[in-house]
């Protein structure tokens, strides 16, 4: 009797223990079972530490999709499907997201394109980036981000029948003598009429290198920048960003108008003023190299841009000169010469650099003789 009692107690305890052990495996830090979980899921959870992981990703997949983070939602559902290949929800969601993602990317791209055409460059960039995030292989978003937004460094020019390099040079650079640039970049030989039809690609020359105002180049029909612009509206937009002190953007907008209409005086004025103010801003921040680069874009003769440019050069030259003196006192004579030469390159009339270079070279010669 006593033995039977003990045996009964033993079995009860074992059953309790078994039930407890099963419960323990589905511990509180695990996700709740899915809505679609079959009857044997609890058993699975007990033996598979990854069971909860799949369920966590199921929840993530739903949340990501709800919040609009479609690529992450897709990744999450792929994880779920890997663990549960027959999971109907995962299969449905993956198929849905595969359709949704390129469509959403295209919407962002088209929005970006509209903003780009409207010269809202910062907003356009955001939309192109969103398109890339959703669909890294989007055929055009990368091209616009990389090539179109920063602007181009070259003109494209469609040759008219019978035109010569000198004529094209006159049109593009206001100087027929720069035809060698056109020849170099387009592998042309001779001065005669150019092959027709053909599109030439030739660098935009820095405004300060131009001899006169740029004459109108025939726009190339299939290029985005060359399309006719609604100039008045564009100009107003450029002025708006200028008033908000966004000088790089207003300069870029004005330049784009000039690409289409090189004789537009208001756009030229706005471009010059934008670069001028931007350069002054850099100057106030003691960023003289950046100031130099920006002032170089202002047309020569505009306000006191030439003086500002000279001042930037002088400041940079002075930095180099002081570095040279420091090197010299540290007996780093070659480095001192290097710095002084840099000073001289920027300011050929530097009061001391030339003389100091000569002295330093004499010192070097003497040192070599001693050796």
């Amino acid at each position, binding site marked *: 009797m006593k*033995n039977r009692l*003990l045996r009964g*107690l*033993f079995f009860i*305890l*074992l059953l*309790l*223990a*078994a039930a407890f*052990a099963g419960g*323990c*495996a589905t*511990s509180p830090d695990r996700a709740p079972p899915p809505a679609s979980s079959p009857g044997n899921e609890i058993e699975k959870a*007990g033996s598979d*530490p*990854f069971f*909860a*992981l799949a369920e966590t990703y199921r929840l*993530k997949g739903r949340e990501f999709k709800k919040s*609009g983070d479609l690529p992450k939602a897709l*990744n999450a559902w792929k994880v779920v499907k*890997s*663990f549960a290949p027959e999971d109907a929800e995962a299969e449905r969601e993956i198929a849905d997201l595969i359709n949704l993602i390129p469509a959403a990317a295209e919407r962002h791209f088209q929005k970006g394109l509209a903003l780009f055409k409207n010269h809202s460059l910062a907003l356009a960039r*955001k939309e192109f*980036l969103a398109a*890339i*995030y959703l669909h*890294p292989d989007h055929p055009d978003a*990368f091209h616009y981000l*990389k090539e179109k937004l*920063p602007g181009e*460094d070259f003109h494209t020019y469609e040759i008219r029948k019978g035109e010569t390099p000198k004529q094209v040079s006159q049109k593009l650079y206001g100087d027929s*003598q*720069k035809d060698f*640039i056109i020849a*170099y*970049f387009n592998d042309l030989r001779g001065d005669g009429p150019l092959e027709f039809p053909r599109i030439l690609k*030739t*660098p*935009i*020359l*820095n405004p300060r*290198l131009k001899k006169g105002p740029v004459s109108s180049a025939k726009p190339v029909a299939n290029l985005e920048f060359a399309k006719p612009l609604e100039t008045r509206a564009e100009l107003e937009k450029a002025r708006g960003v200028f008033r908000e002190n966004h000088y790089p953007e207003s300069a870029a907008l004005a330049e784009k108008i000039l690409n289409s209409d090189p004789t537009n005086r208001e756009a030229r004025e706005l471009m010059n003023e934008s670069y001028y103010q931007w350069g002054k801003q850099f100057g106030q921040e003691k960023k003289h*190299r950046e100031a*130099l*680069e920006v002032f*170089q874009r202002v047309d020569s003769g505009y306000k006191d841009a030439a003086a500002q440019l000279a001042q930037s050069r002088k400041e*940079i030259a002075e*930095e180099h000169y002081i*570095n040279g003196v*420091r*090197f010299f006192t*540290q007996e*780093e004579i*070659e*480095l001192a010469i290097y710095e002084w030469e*840099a000073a001289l*390159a*920027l300011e*050929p009339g530097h009061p001391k650099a030339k003389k100091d270079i000569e002295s330093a070279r004499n010192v070097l010669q003497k040192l070599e003789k001693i050796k």
Partner: protein
Amino acid sequence: MSDCRGRVRTLKVKSPCLFIGACLFILVNLLAGGRAVLSAEVAGMERRERSFPDFIAVVAREGDTFSSLALEYLKDPTWDGFLAEFNGVDSLRPGQPVIIPLKPERKGGVTLRGYQTVPILAYHNFSSTQTGKLTARQAMFEEQMRFLREEGYRVIALDQLFDFLEFKGSLPPKSVVITIDDGWLSAYEIALPVLKKYGYPVTLFVYTDIIGKSPRALSWDLLGKMAEEGLDIQCHTKSHRNLAVPGEKESFKDYFENLVGELSGCKETIKKRLNREVKYLAYPYGTTNSLVIETAKKMGYRGALTVIRGGNPFFSHNFRVNRSEILGDFNMSQFERNLAVFQEQSLR
């Protein structure tokens, strides 16, 4: 088997309390069983993992971090941030199951919060004792390189950066490039041993007119040796003139011809002396313009570097790549300010 039964029988006969105690012992063990088994897995030699074509699911063990898992499975600890983001947690605890994507893809490093930027550090000269604006002291340089390692930065080659800029590959989230300009001997004597110690790749931009012309400059023999050892040697023009600004007495035609000479002379000399193809250009003084850019493109350069401070997102212009000069008088906090690897911009 019979022995076992006998023991139970003996137990039953000798003391019911002992028997109940034994049952309780079994119960306690069973209650703790799930955890105990897991703990053994966690701490033990064998890791529980399940492989799928695109990822591996693993259970974290004691001491695991995202960095150690990235090293173990992706062969690169600097993907730790990517793993943390993928799993949506900041740190690991033993027993935690984790997903490790086998092909970590962050093309362009774009997220909904912003995008990756890659800083390029520009050094010039080095000295074991002295500091100058363009001269980094050896001890400081070592500290900076150690900082990169300790803070989980991944120093990558310039080619990898340009693959990123051309949208051909992903980079670890904290990638950084190191360059040294000019061609001073100190690059070999001081910087290279430190860079070798950490296994960091570096690109040396030399202007060819100085090579072998000064006792403080590198010689072609030494450059040849460095190239043999795998050092990347690229162009800093022929004479280090400012490419963006014509000389005061230089006609436009002369300016252009000299520009062509600066870019081709350097490229050809390196090819002739070192039998190395040059792909990249560092603009002297960091300055450029559209004519310089188009000339460099025409000559087959893949890209060029300025000294405009800031990191480079994947959509940076290949010929206006930003680069931050690390000046000799920088302290560590100034150095760190040049290491921004992410630009916040909500894409929602």
